[in-house]
C-alpha cells in the first residue's frame, strides 16, 4: 500500500530501527508502515473507534488526550515524536510542542498552512473564515482552534530554540511545485517539519 505523500515524507526522515511515538495515530497506518522497517513504538489516539484497525495493524495504541501532554513518558524516551495534522486542534500547541521536544530527540510536525493564498484571499477579500481542502470545516464546527502559518510556526520554533532540521511544504495533493519552493508560505497548503532541541 502506498502511503499518503506527507506520511511518506515523515517515513523517509525516520531511520530504520528508531523508537517512535505517533501522536493522533488514527487507524495506525503510519506506524504499521514504520514497523515493517523495524521501527517500534506507540500510537496515541483519543478516539477508540479506530482501535480495532490499529490492533489489526499490529501496533500498540494508547488512548490519550494530547491536551493533557505526554506526562506518561519519560524525558528523551523516543527518537522521534510525530504529530501529523493535529497541532491546529490542540488547546496549547506551544505546550504540546514543548512536551514533544521533552520526550523525543526529534519532533516531526505536520500542519495545514493558514498563510496559503486561498486562505488569505478568502479572509482578506471575502471577509470570511477560509474553507479549503485542507481546512474543510466551517468556523463553528471545526476541530481546528489554533491555526498558524509557516511563518508563525518557524517563529515559535525559533523562540523556543527548536532547530529546524528539515522542512517539506506541499500542496493539497501532497506534491511540491516550483511556486511552493519559491514562496512556501503563500503557495504551500501543508507543511511538515523535522525539529530538534538546540540544547540536546
Amino acid at each position, binding site marked *: 500500500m502506498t502511503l499518503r505523500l506527507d506520511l511518506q515524507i515523515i517515513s523517509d526522515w525516520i531511520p530504520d530501527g528508531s523508537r517512535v511515538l505517533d501522536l493522533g495515530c488514527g487507524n495506525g497506518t503510519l506506524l504499521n508502515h514504520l514497523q515493517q522497517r523495524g521501527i517500534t513504538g*506507540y500510537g496515541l489516539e483519543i478516539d*477508540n*473507534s479506530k*482501535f*480495532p484497525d*490499529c*490492533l*489489526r495493524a*499490529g501496533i*500498540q*495504541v*494508547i*488512548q*490519550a488526550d494530547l491536551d493533557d501532554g505526554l506526562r*506518561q*513518558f*519519560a524525558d528523551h*524516551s523516543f527518537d522521534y515524536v510525530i504529530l501529523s495534522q493535529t497541532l491546529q486542534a490542540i488547546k496549547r500547541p506551544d505546550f504540546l510542542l514543548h512536551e514533544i521536544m521533552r520526550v523525543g530527540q526529534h519532533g516531526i510536525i505536520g500542519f495545514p498552512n493558514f498563510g496559503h493564498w486561498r486562505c488569505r484571499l478568502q479572509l482578506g477579500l471575502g471577509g470570511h473564515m477560509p474553507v479549503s481542502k485542507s481546512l474543510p470545516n466551517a468556523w463553528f464546527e471545526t476541530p481546528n482552534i489554533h491555526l498558524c502559518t509557516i511563518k508563525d510556526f518557524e517563529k515559535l520554533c525559533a523562540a523556543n530554540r527548536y532547530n529546524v532540521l528539515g522542512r517539506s511544504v506541499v500542496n493539497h495533493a501532497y506534491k511540491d511545485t516550483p511556486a511552493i519552493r519559491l514562496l512556501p508560505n503563500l503557495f504551500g497548503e501543508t507543511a511538515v517539519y523535522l525539529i530538534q532541541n538546540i540544547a540536546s
Partner: protein
Amino acid sequence: MPDSLPADSVGIVAPHTLHVKTPLTLDCGRTLPEFTLIYETYGQLNADKSNAVLICHALSGDHHAAGYHDLDDRKPGWWESAIGPGKAIDTNHFFVVCPNNLGGCKGSTGPTTINPETGQVYGPDFPIVTVNDWVNSQAILADTLGVSQWAAVIGGSLGGMQALQWAISLPNRLRHALIIAAAPKLSAQNIAFNEVARTAIKSDPDFHDGHYAAHNTLPRQGLGLARMLGHITYLSDEAMGQKFGRELRSGAIQYGYGVEFQIESYLRYQSSSFVERFDANTYLLMTKSLDYFDPAKAFNDDLSAAMQPITAKTLVMSFTSDWRFSPLRSLEIVNAMLTAGKQVSYAEIEANQGHDAFLMPIPRYMEIFSTYMQQVAREVNL
C-alpha cells in the same frame, strides 16, 4: 431457564477436578500439604497446545465462567458475554480454562473444605492466599494440562490483578495479558470498603470467629451487608438511577422503616441470594488478598521496576464510570509499562454501568476485545 441453549453459548458444561498431592508453600509462610482446584474448560486444546487461554476470576467469582450446568440453570456462567463460539474469547479457536481460586468456596481447597491434617473443615484456619499464590497454583494446573505457555491470561478486577501478576512472575508462560478494570494495588478507599465489609461479617453474632460451621449457623446478616456494600460500589450512580430511580414498591410512601424503594428491595434480594451461594470466610480471605496485592512493594514502590520482567504483550481496558477501579488506576498500570518500555495498548471504554461494566456486552468493548483476541489467534496460527 432457557428453552434451548443460545447458539453462541458453549452449552452444557461440567467442572473438572485437579488434585495436587505436592505441598504448596504460600506467601504467608504456611504450606498446603495437598490441594484441589476445580476448573472448567471450553473449546478444544489443539495438538501443539498453543491455543490455551486462562480466565482469572474476580472476588466473588468461580470456575463457572460460561455455559450452563444443566438446562434448568437460570443463568449461564459469569462471563457468558465474552466467552463462546464467535465471541471475544472465541471457543472455535481457543481452549479456555477457568479455575476456582484456592481459598474459594466452590470446590477448590478453601475454608469450606476439609483440612487433611485435622479431618475438620478449615474454616477460619485456612491460610490467607495471595494473588501470587493463585498464579503459582494456576501454573500447576497449566503443567497438568500440558500448557507450557498460555496464548493469553485474561481477567477483570481481581482477575486483572492475577493476569498482571502472571505477566510479572512467570513471563515466559504467557504470550498476552488482558487486564480489565483493574488496579496495580488498592487505594486506601478500596481497603476501607473491604474493611467495612469484613467488619460487617465479623460482627454478626452468628459468625463465631469464623467457626460458624461448627455451630451449625451462618453469618447471614453480616455477609449480606458486605455484599450490599460491595454491590453499591460495583455500580455507578447513573446505572442505579436508570435501573431503579426512586421508584417505590407500593407506589406510595409508608413513613416507616420497611422496604419501600425498589433499590432497597433489589439490594436485599442480591444480598440474601449471595448468602446462599458464598462463604463468609472465603469473602474475608478474598478481600484480604485484594488488599495485599502490590507488586511494586518489593521494588521500593516503583511499579515500572516491577514490570521489567514482563515479555507478554498487554491490553489494558477500563470503563469511564468505574469508580471502584477508575480509569486512572488502569493508567497507573499502563504508564508503568510505558516507562518500562513494554508492549501495551490501552482503551478506556465509555460505559455507564460502573465497575460491573467489564461483565457486560458493551459493543465498543467487545469490538476491541474481539479484535485483540483475533490477533492473538493469528499469532499462534489458529
